[in-house]
């Protein structure tokens, strides 16, 4: 009687181990790089962490398949000091049937971020071998940022060119006015001088003045 009881007690784990093989249809390998990711703050991998993994995986399966998965449905085996192991997921309805690869993959992909956060790791330090993380879509701004800086710089350059050209033109105009003004002044001067000394406008006298200018 006792023998039978022992046999029945030992059966599920044995069966579980038999289900969890690397060549099983729904098996996935998990690899954690805790020390590389966390350095000094790294935690040891022990039974409690393993339990957390199984609980998180059960959560992920629940979310995806909307079925009542429990910790006992996640079977972990072939652990290594790397910290890597294989796991399989059994269906809650039939503990000897395995959930197929596709379902497990989709469940993991959906809750990847939650699983990573439970272990304080990231997509690269908590690897599911065979399940590729969906990469974050790149943020595409409406105006590429380089165009903004370019616009500012070319605006400044354009303003500089316009300023220089306008100031050159105004200088030229000013010089022209000055030259015209000088000529007028000198002509007026000679006429005035002539009228003051003679009272009558003597053209010969003013002609002489013009020659001495040169």
């Amino acid at each position, binding site marked *: 009687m006792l023998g039978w009881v022992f046999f029945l007690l030992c059966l599920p784990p044995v069966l579980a181990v038999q289900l969890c093989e690397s060549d099983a249809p729904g098996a996935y390998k998990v690899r954690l790089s*805790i*020390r590389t990711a966390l350095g000094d703050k790294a935690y040891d991998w022990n039974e409690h962490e393993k339990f957390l993994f199984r609980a998180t995986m059960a959560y992920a399966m629940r979310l995806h398949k909307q079925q009542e998965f429990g910790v006992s449905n996640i079977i972990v085996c072939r652990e290594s000091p790397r*910290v890597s192991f294989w796991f399989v997921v059994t269906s809650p309805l039939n503990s000897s049937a395995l959930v197929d690869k596709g379902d497990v993959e989709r469940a993991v992909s959906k809750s990847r971020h939650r699983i990573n956060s439970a272990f304080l790791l990231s997509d690269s330090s908590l690897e599911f071998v065979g399940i590729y993380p969906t*990469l974050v879509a790149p943020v595409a701004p409406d105006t590429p*940022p*380089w165009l903004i800086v370019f616009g500012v710089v*070319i605006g400044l*350059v354009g303003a500089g060119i316009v300023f*220089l050209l306008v100031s050159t033109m105004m200088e030229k105009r000013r010089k022209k006015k000055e030259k015209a003004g000088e000529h007028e002044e000198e002509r007026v001067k000679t006429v005035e001088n002539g009228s003051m000394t003679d009272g009558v406008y003597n053209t010969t006298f003013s002609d002489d003045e013009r020659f001495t200018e040169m």
Partner: protein
Amino acid sequence: MEKDVRDNWENPTQFILACVSYAVGLGNVWRFPYLCQMHGGGGFLIPYFLMLLLEGVPLFYMELAIGQKMRLGSIGAWTAISPYLGGLGLASVVASLYLCLYYNIINAWSFWYLFHSFQSTLPWSVCPINSNRTGPIEECERATPTQYFFYRETLNISSSIEENGSIHTGQALCLLLAWGITYLFIVRGVKSTGKVVYFTATFPYVVLFIYLIRGMTLHGAVNGVIYMFTPKMEELAKPTTWINAATQIFFSLGLGFGSLIAFSSYNQYHNNFERQAIIVSLINSGTSIFAAIVTFAIYGFKATVNYENCLERTRTLLLNAFSLSEDSINMDNVFEWIEKLNTTYPEQFAELYGKLETCDLEQELNTAVEGTGLAFIVYSEAITNMPLSQLWSVLYFIMLLLLGMGSMLGNVTAIITPLRDFKVVSRISSELFNGIVCLVCFLLGLGFTTTSGNYWFSIFNDYGATFSLLFIVLIEIITVSYYYGIKRFEKDIEDMLGHRPNWYWKIMWAGVSPLLLIALFLFYIVSYIQGGTPTYQAWNEDLGKSEQAEYPLFGQAFIGLLLVSSVSCVPLTALYVFIQKRKQAHQHKQQHSVSTVAA
């Protein structure tokens, strides 16, 4: 009554800074460190300085003397020495035109990279994700993110020179900006150029100094500097070392383009250009060495980072393959573990054979790159590994821009000054003429922004101004020494400076420099003939790396056209003048005979 008041530099400092700004350019940063590394590190300085003394400073002195004496651009100056030699100036203008066309593209690339540095992650540090969001773009994975950014996003390069495509709008905009800034700097001639060079000549040194401090404090930088400066004296026995030293001095000083003649033509007649020539040449060489130290520090850093990444990848591979605990292998004992695992698990180890890389620090240090590859790929990769990479990226590309724009000032002045000496052109206002030159060069330069543009750029870079310059300067020095005469030249210099040049200069001008130039010239011709069909590096999209390809027939024809077009100016102009003189003499004879008959 003064006929034509020529523009002048406001003070001699502006002239020195303009020459420094022109001579210190991108070549000091991306060509000299490469040569130094390839030809025996610190030992290369011996041929370099020797060539500076024998060839660099004397030729520099000569060009400044010509410009200051004749007070005309290159065409006018050489025509004044002999009417048959006007073609020499014209050849300089043609070479400068080719240089202007392709040089501003480099500035456009620098602008592109500068504007793209204002982002939280530098776009050349990570591969962009493909459309399915399953992983990085394939081309980027096969190459590196920096190469992908340069060849695909910056250039959108085609796979060979024969395939052409549309203009890259971003590049075209950056080229427009580059020409806009060039116009802004030269719009009023030396009045505006003189003020700009205060900034373009000095600020690159500030950045280089900052980079020196940053570079030397990087992990592994000192290894790089020590390794690359350790002299390997056996390299001095090879003739290519000496030839490369001579060509580097020659091109680095910017001789033969007519820029130096143009700059010095705006000097006061009694300006002491002898001292200035020595100062500028020494500054130029000093900057090359300074830039080499910075580059080697960056190389050392990059090589160490690559080496350590390689070790890390090997470590991860071993840990994953043999499921060992993470503590067991660290960076120091990777190689011991490889040995151990090879002996204990030979079959498993054999499976890894294809994936296992050999990590060799010396091999990393020995990779030497020059040119645009160094500036835009290697340096930008090193910058992504530095903390605060956006800041370093902005500083670095601003420095490249200042170096490039400073050289452009000289290049454009070399075209404008001789053309403005012609009466037809001097009637147009200088602003309008400068604008026309910049606009024409911009429109022609748009050809370099097409998908095959980088291949055309390489043609111009390798053949546009190398051979023709040697020819031009050789004719220059022979003209001055033997046709014009050393004695007359001496007197002119005494007139300007107040003392005669001493025996050292005379020996260099009359003997050593022409012989050196003839040797270089012959070497170029021989290597052209021996080299066979010229080849270029074509980017292979599928493999993610560059491959050597031969130029097609039209490419080779174009190379020939480039070489011939500037060199042939000299004989053609001489022929033209000769024919004109014969015609005039003939007409004169006829008139004379008519008048005697009349009398």
